[in-house]
């Protein structure tokens, strides 16, 4: 699981390569550490995410690790109007509750949404609920959602519960794009 925040500032004045002590400026370093910790705290509370410059083909990318060690959501707005949402981790009770608000926001703000499930290792009924409710919101305003490349066990959950009858499951982004083009 990727870290929730940027790597923390070094708190000790030891140089990594030489083992020599660097000149110590304890007060400023401590102050910066406190500021950094405050930013991390606010990020965790308000789920601010991070805007990341990306390569060609991407307009905007926001990484939101909503519940460290459980699940993370990586949102990428593509040039063709499709929003790719890469979910990584477990959509169990804890994971589903953690991403539910984020999914509601995505459904409110976006129109063509691909949920990339390739990195989801577990899906429970509460996670299914999150997917269904988001898809209903999208559909109510003329949008749509597709599920991309779930792992075999997760796909079995989707098909067993009948999710595949209301949200299409595709293997690659070309197939997803084709569905949105209809």
């Amino acid at each position: 699981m990727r870290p929730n925040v940027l790597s923390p500032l070094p708190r000790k004045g030891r140089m990594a390569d030489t083992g020599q002590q660097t000149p110590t400026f304890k007060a400023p370093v401590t102050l910066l550490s406190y500021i950094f910790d405050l930013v991390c705290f606010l990020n965790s509370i308000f789920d601010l995410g991070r805007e990341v410059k990306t390569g060609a083909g991407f307009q905007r990318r926001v990484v939101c690790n909503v519940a460290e060690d459980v699940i993370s959501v990586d949102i990428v707005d593509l040039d063709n109007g499709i929003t790719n949402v890469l979910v990584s981790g477990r959509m169990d009770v804890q994971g589903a509750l953690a991403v539910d608000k984020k999914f509601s926001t995505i459904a409110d703000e976006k129109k063509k949404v691909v949920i990339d499930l390739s990195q989801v290792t577990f899906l429970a009924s509460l996670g299914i609920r999150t997917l269904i409710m988001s898809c209903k919101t999208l559909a109510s305003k003329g949008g749509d959602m597709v599920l991309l490349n779930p792992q075999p066990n997760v796909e079995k959950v989707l098909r067993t519960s009948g999710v595949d009858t209301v949200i299409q499951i595709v293997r690659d982004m070309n197939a997803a794009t084709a569905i949105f083009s209809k």
Partner: protein
Amino acid sequence: MNAVQKQHVNNPNTWRKAFIGTIDDISAAAQWVATIAADQQFPEQLVFALQVCLEELLTNVVRHGGATSSGDLSEVPIPPLNVEISISTNAQRVSMTVEDNGKPFDVVNAPVHRIDQPLDEVQPGGLGIQLIRNFASTIAYERAGLGNRVVVEFLL
């Protein structure tokens, strides 16, 4: 002997542990079962099936088991729910028993929900029972033990 509680009294391949009916303990129970599964080198699909059934059974307990439960998972059920989970294995099967002291809920005879209507008519809920019945080889319920006792079995 690893950190997992293991009983040798009646069956050397039986593990039992008590939990509280909260979201945090659902995750703790899942982790406990995963540790046993890894220790016993259960097949990947069996581990997944165990986790699905455990997750759905415990979610039902937390959402609906409390006397004043509103179904809101962020609330701690009142009165606090006790849950005991035991896992036992033999050459043919793995058995998982979940006992709780919540309100009676017969998971075997409860109505099954499956999504088979248009999207705008879909009301998610009750999907967990459908998942349990599909991922377990057998399922049995009785009003016993702490109150409710569900036994799910998985063939090896």
